[in-house]
């Protein structure tokens, strides 16, 4: 974010790791907030998808984490920060179809190795950093093109 951009909204949402009990609840909250802010439908949809995939990753692989939503007049930024096992080889993890998922993760319909590539696909900018044994940080930016969407 550049210094001249004013922050319209910011919130941090805790995510419980190691369980699917509440998986998707934060994404629903983020989506509802963006709807209240009357952002364009396609922006909300993309933000909801990347948030949901990131939340599922925290539920699947981390001890705990948080999702930070920031909205400016030009961007929606979503950061997913977790403390957990981390990713040893990010290039490998980014390959569509590469998975380290457990049977439990697969039973709920995830773990096919498509989450990170989906996040990249639906983001205008995507950055991932990770440290083994400490955790993973994802940052996704979705641009709000207000002229294009006539908001």
């Amino acid at each position, binding site marked *: 974010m550049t210094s001249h951009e004013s922050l319209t909204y910011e919130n941090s949402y805790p995510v419980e790791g190691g369980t699917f009990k509440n998986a*998707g609840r934060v*994404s629903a909250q983020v989506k509802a907030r963006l709807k209240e802010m009357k952002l364009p*439908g396609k922006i909300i*949809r993309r933000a*909801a*998808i990347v948030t949901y995939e990131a939340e599922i990753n925290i539920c699947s692989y981390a001890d705990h984490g948080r999702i930070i939503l920031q909205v400016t007049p030009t961007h929606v930024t979503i950061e997913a920060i977790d403390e957990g096992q981390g990713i040893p080889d990010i290039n490998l993890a980014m390959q569509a179809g590469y998975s380290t998922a457990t049977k439990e993760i697969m039973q709920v*319909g*995830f773990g*096919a190795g498509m*989450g990170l590539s989906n996040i990249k696909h639906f983001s205008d900018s995507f950055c991932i950093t990770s440290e083994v044994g400490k955790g993973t940080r994802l940052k996704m930016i979705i641009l709000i093109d207000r002229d294009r969407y006539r908001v």
Partner: protein
Amino acid sequence: MKEILDAEVIVGHDQLGLEIKEAGCADLLSDVLFYCKAGCLLLTGLTNPQIIRTADVLDIAAVIVVRGKCPSPETIQLAEELQIPILTTKYILFESVGRLYAKGIVSCVKKVGEKRDFS
């Protein structure tokens, strides 16, 4: 839809008039997130609450659980809370999709790699 698939309505008896033109089917939810569109129908063999969370994220109109499977009580509760209809059919996925296609329901995305508008 209910008649085409000889389906049982589990949640959403009051939403049976919904008009649906497109559908997607998958047992991998990341695939659903990749190509399903708002307002479409989702056919799946999964029964856990994540099918409803996924449907909610994408504004999917309704979920059909195939192969005679029963959604879990948590799934039904969440669907009621989020007002997302769930139907079940005893037809397998291939047969269900074929029956819908024959009645004019088309796929959300025909081929991967086509230009997307993220709708």
